[in-house]
């Protein structure tokens, strides 16, 4: 039984659902919670959890759930994790807060990818599921929408500072998302009549006084013009103080930020930038691609024409070359567990190393002295060795490391100087990448 890691693969948009509710602490736990799982089993369909976790993971079954809730018990709350072993990936958590705290029942569901909810039937079933839960348990607010768009909307703070937002929660209609359940207080703040007359795909008053509001039949196309228009109309209806044109403009700007951008990276650094982009959070990725499309790395300056080479000034050039080899091995020793391709000494291993240092924020997360004394010499030597092995370069040994050179065709490269500049900041790793220097050296091999 292997649970699919929700965050284990490339970050991409998902359906986020949060439910802020309550349960009856007097009732026996099983009878109180049984309807919750009945509803889940009836409507979840293809994203139904197959693993339940308290402390241990078990195959999903009612008995496993009661066991897990017992195991997951703390003196403050009890919680349960529900997951899947197959796509779509699921990260679902159920929280029950224990006395003397108010008996809160909170749930979050994340299903990835969001595109799974492109089908109207699946979305309808999801709405029915929420409707059934919100009818059975008192709820103050519940919402389902694109995780990326919620992030861009500033959820859950909506412009408030963190403390205020955590204290007050969703205490007014800051935003209308794809699916919304407004609890009695929110309904009252708007006025029941007004809320029930909201223009939307579905508006329904639930028996306990909550209102269920769905703006559009499907959630996966939330960014389309039509869905945005429906979202804006519902929002300004509930918030007459807002102006439709302004709300719509904001929503369209968010759609534009999430619209796919075709990468057109500078060819010398494209392999590295693709890795960087893949690592970028999904809500920021398209903007990052656009930014990097416009960005041009500066031309490498760490070279001299062949005739300007500094002559070797060491007594035993062979020993000096061995020394460079040893320094390069230090890099292999440092990186090999995380970047196994470093053994190969290929242009691809240079890109892997670039990405590793960038991902680790190496220039700022490690001690400066350690970088200068150990990392820079190891990186310079490694870069030199790759130029030697893959481009037929030759070391020209010098007493001072920063003067050591590698001749490749008509150019003399200074790998230690490059490494020094490269390690000066996180941005410098991209500006002065090893990937790029190799590509340029290759082109000028002659």
């Amino acid at each position, binding site marked *: 039984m292997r649970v699919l890691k929700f965050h284990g693969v490339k970050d991409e948009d998902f359906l986020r659902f949060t439910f802020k509710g309550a349960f009856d602490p007097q009732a026996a736990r099983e009878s109180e919670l049984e309807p919750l799982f009945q509803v889940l089993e009836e409507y979840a369909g293809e994203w139904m959890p197959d693993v339940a976790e308290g402390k241990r993971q078990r195959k999903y079954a009612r008995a496993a759930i009661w066991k897990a809730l017992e195991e997951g018990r*703390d003196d403050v709350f009890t919680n349960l994790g529900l997951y899947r072993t197959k796509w779509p990936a699921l990260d679902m958590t159920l929280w029950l807060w224990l006395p003397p705290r108010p008996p809160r029942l909170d749930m979050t569901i994340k299903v990835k990818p969001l595109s799974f909810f492109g089908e109207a039937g699946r979305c309808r079933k999801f709405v029915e599921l929420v409707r059934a839960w919100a009818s059975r348990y008192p709820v103050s607010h519940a919402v389902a929408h694109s995780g990326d768009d919620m992030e861009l909307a500033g959820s859950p703070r909506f412009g408030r500072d963190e403390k205020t937002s955590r204290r007050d929660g969703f205490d007014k209609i800051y935003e209308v998302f794809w699916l919304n359940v407004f609890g009695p207080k929110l309904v009252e703040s708007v006025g029941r009549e007004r809320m029930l007359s909201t223009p939307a795909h579905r508006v329904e008053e639930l028996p306990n006084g909550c209102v269920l509001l769905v703006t559009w039949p499907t959630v996966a196309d939330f960014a389309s013009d039509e869905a945005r228009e429906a979202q804006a109309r519902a929002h300004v209806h509930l918030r007459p103080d807002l102006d439709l044109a302004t709300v719509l403009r904001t929503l369209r700007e968010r759609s534009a930020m999430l619209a796919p951008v075709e990468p057109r990276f500078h060819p010398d650094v494209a392999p590295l930038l693709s890795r960087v982009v893949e690592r970028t959070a999904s809500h920021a990725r398209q903007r990052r691609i656009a930014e990097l499309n416009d960005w041009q790395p500066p031309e490498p300056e760490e070279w001299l024409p062949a005739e300007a080479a500094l002559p070797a000034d060491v007594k035993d050039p062979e020993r000096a070359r061995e020394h460079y080899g040893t320094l390069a091995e230090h890099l292999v020793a440092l990186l090999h567990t995380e970047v196994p391709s470093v053994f190969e000494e290929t242009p691809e291993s240079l890109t892997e190393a670039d990405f590793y240092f960038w991902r680790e924020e190496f220039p700022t997360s490690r001690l400066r002295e350690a970088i200068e004394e150990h990392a820079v010499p190891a990186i310079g030597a490694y870069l030199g060795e790759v130029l030697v092995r893959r481009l037929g370069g030759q070391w020209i040994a010098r007493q001072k490391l920063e003067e050591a050179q590698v001749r490749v065709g008509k150019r003399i490269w200074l790998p230690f100087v490059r490494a020094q500049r490269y390690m000066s900041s996180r941005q410098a790793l991209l500006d002065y990448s090893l990937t790029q220097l190799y590509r340029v050296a290759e082109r000028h091999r002659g």
Partner: protein
Amino acid sequence: MLKLLRADAVLPRGERRLLGDFDKPCLERYVGVWKPESGLRYADMLVIEEGKPVGWPPRVETFSFKSRNLALLEEKALTAQMIEDAREALRKYGETLDIRRDSLRPLLREGSEVPVRRVRLIYEGGELKPTKIDDLDAVVNAVEEAVPGVEVLFQ
């Protein structure tokens, strides 16, 4: 983080983000603190009020810095990990501490045992945290509710 704290300390009180509860905060690194249950530990940062009139208990807060990859955890595991970190921080650097650094004695006045008003658990490393604020705020809420006396911050 250290730089941030030091910069915060020299701002006018009203503008401070982290040390606003102090009048004149004195920042000390790696301070040895003793508790019977956890023995001698070193607080990453201890902040103590400087120059309070005699008779006032000195305000003391501690900071514990953690560098942990939280970006890949599911919500339940993430919350469990952070609650564990928060409880550990409270156990080692919270409640009542016996401050072992002699040079701080003049600020402590009545013996070296002081109540700690607040423990701040600070996660360092921007790349290591969950990418969505919705996820972050939900767990921070749960952790602070589960472990009163500890405040969780992300750098």
